């Protein structure tokens, strides 16, 4: 029907077949466009990471999606409480909290704020013990929202008792491309000293409005304390374990690396509790994983086995990140984009300077840890670290004012991919 037009169109196409083109220029254009997209991607990832870094020092986020075994009893219990599914979704990567729900230690609150500017907040429920309060909340909006987040929280005891907070976390921004009317999340408080009162008020700030919600906690279940005073040893490096305390929300392992060690232990990667049947309670996967300073007294937190009554209980460790004590710093020349010094394992492949960021590529696929805790100039003056960030390819750190620095800088390691191994097992019970 349109034979002539089709022929003409084919002719038209052929004329472009022999068009002169510069492949160099084409490739250049491709790379410019690609780099622009990467830069934006990095920026948006960083935005998220910088929010995390305000939450607490030792947060470790692993997108682990473990399946949970739900017993028929548990399943029917969940279906009895309205809105329980979303809470199970939030705690599915923490065995201890799931067990708390299963053992009816989860306390329903159902406190809802007044509506301000089309928005209200509900406290759905809580799991609490003498050292911590975890609140589950839902933000409701009359209009669909693509993104919502809590800007600030403030917890107060109604009787005015001062609260000595050790860590506060209230999660990442909630995002949904389609937009949603409600988002659920958790607020976690842990304290330095045991709580003495039960009545609280929490102020939650969302989109510039403040919502105040009262709640009263039930009686706490008492902690179980196991004195240990034994030593673990990985490749000659000694770790003294003082005690283990099991709370409903988490297990705290009190330990300290021996001062005579040649290596500085950076992270106890697979520290865990195992019972006589081989069931394992590992590290906290989404939340505060520990407190204290490497080389000094530390508390490492594990998922709680409080609601499980084992005959025997062991503390097990096979692998820890460690570097020689004289290799605690990575030295980088930002001008030359070169690594001048790093631990002998030599696991950092390369460094690039992008704005204020030092973007490290590693010799391994993924290393999901923020590597550096502190930065210094060569004469020892401290330089501010804005945040660590991780993408699929890069492990980066943003240094305040890096783009104007001419001198090399020293970065103190808090994590590094070199390990000491062993097979340590201490009986707790």
């Amino acid at each position, binding site marked *: 029907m349109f034979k002539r037009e089709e022929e003409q169109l084919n002719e*038209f196409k052929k004329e472009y077949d022999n068009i002169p083109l510069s492949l160099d220029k084409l490739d250049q254009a*491709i790379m410019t466009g690609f780099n622009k997209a990467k830069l934006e991607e990095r920026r948006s990832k960083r935005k998220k990471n910088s929010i995390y870094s305000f939450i607490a020092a030792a947060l470790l986020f692993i997108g682990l999606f473990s399946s949970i075994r739900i017993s028929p009893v548990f399943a029917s219990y969940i279906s009895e409480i309205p809105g329980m599914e979303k809470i199970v979704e939030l705690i599915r990567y923490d065995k201890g909290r799931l067990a708390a729900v299963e053992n009816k230690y989860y306390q329903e609150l159902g406190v809802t704020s007044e509506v301000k500017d089309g928005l209200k907040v509900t406290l759905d429920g809580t799991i609490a013990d003498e050292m911590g309060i975890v609140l589950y909340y839902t933000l409701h909006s009359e209009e669909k929202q693509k993104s919502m987040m809590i800007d600030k929280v403030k917890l107060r005891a109604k009787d005015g008792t001062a609260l000595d907070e050790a860590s506060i976390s209230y999660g990442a921004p909630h995002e949904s491309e389609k937009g949603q009317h409600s988002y659920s999340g958790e607020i976690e408080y842990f304290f330095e000293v045991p709580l003495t009162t039960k009545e609280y008020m929490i102020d939650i700030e969302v989109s510039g409005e403040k919502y105040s919600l009262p709640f009263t906690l039930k009686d706490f279940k008492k902690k179980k304390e196991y004195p240990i005073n034994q030593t673990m040893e990985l490749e000659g490096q000694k770790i003294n374990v003082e005690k283990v305390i099991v709370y409903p929300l988490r297990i705290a392992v009190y330990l300290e690396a021996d001062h005579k060690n040649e290596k500085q232990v950076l992270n106890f990667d697979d520290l865990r509790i195992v019972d006589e049947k081989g069931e394992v309670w590992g590290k906290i996967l989404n939340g505060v994983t520990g407190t204290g300073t490497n080389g000094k007294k530390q508390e490492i937190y594990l998922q709680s086995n409080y609601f499980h009554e084992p005959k025997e209980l062991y503390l097990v460790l096979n692998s820890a990140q460690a570097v020689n004590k004289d290799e605690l710093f990575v030295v980088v020349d930002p001008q030359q984009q070169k690594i001048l010094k790093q631990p002998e394992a030599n696991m950092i492949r390369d460094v690039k300077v992008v704005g204020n960021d030092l973007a490290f590529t590693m010799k391994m696929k993924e290393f999901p840890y923020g590597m550096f805790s502190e930065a210094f100039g060569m004469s020892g003056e401290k330089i501010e670290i804005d945040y660590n960030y991780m993408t699929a390819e890069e492990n980066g750190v943003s240094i305040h004012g890096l783009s104007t620095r001419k001198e090399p800088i020293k970065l103190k390691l808090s994590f590094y991919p070199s390990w000491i191994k062993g097979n340590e097992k201490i009986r707790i019970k």
Partner: protein
Amino acid sequence: METEQLVKKAIKGNDDAFLQLIQIYKVDLYKTALSFLRNEEEALEAIQEVTYRAYKGIRKLKEASYFKTWLIRIMINYCNDQLKKQKRVVINEEVLESIGVTENHSEMELRDAMLGLDERSREILTLKYFHDLKIKDIAGTMQCPEGTVKTWLNKALKALREKLEERGGNLNV
């Protein structure tokens, strides 16, 4: 098949796979840009912008086999946006001359006729004849039935005929 593997990787966020794909189709993209826009410089800018848009959007690509159509469509959309902007710019004589010199008559004629069409017709004709894409793929990326694409294609060809006849007629006077 191999390309489809690359597309799948790219959707999952593999940068190397993404860049390889752009390499495969860069000449197609460039020719498309050149057929819509005025010169090399603008076409290169288009490549840059399309690479950027494609990278940002690739996670949303649902069907790996439609990658090429999807990518070319990003280019066509970009060019259409540029053309709208250009309409507000007065073309100076220099540019007119350079077009006259570098392009032969029949190309000019068809090209002008194409640029005189509505956006959808221009898009359909470019996908079908410039890139030899199948109706099925075009329908898939546009998320509409093949019948609809065929109807659009017929309308586009008819409109093109009218445009060409308009010009031909003028020349014959």
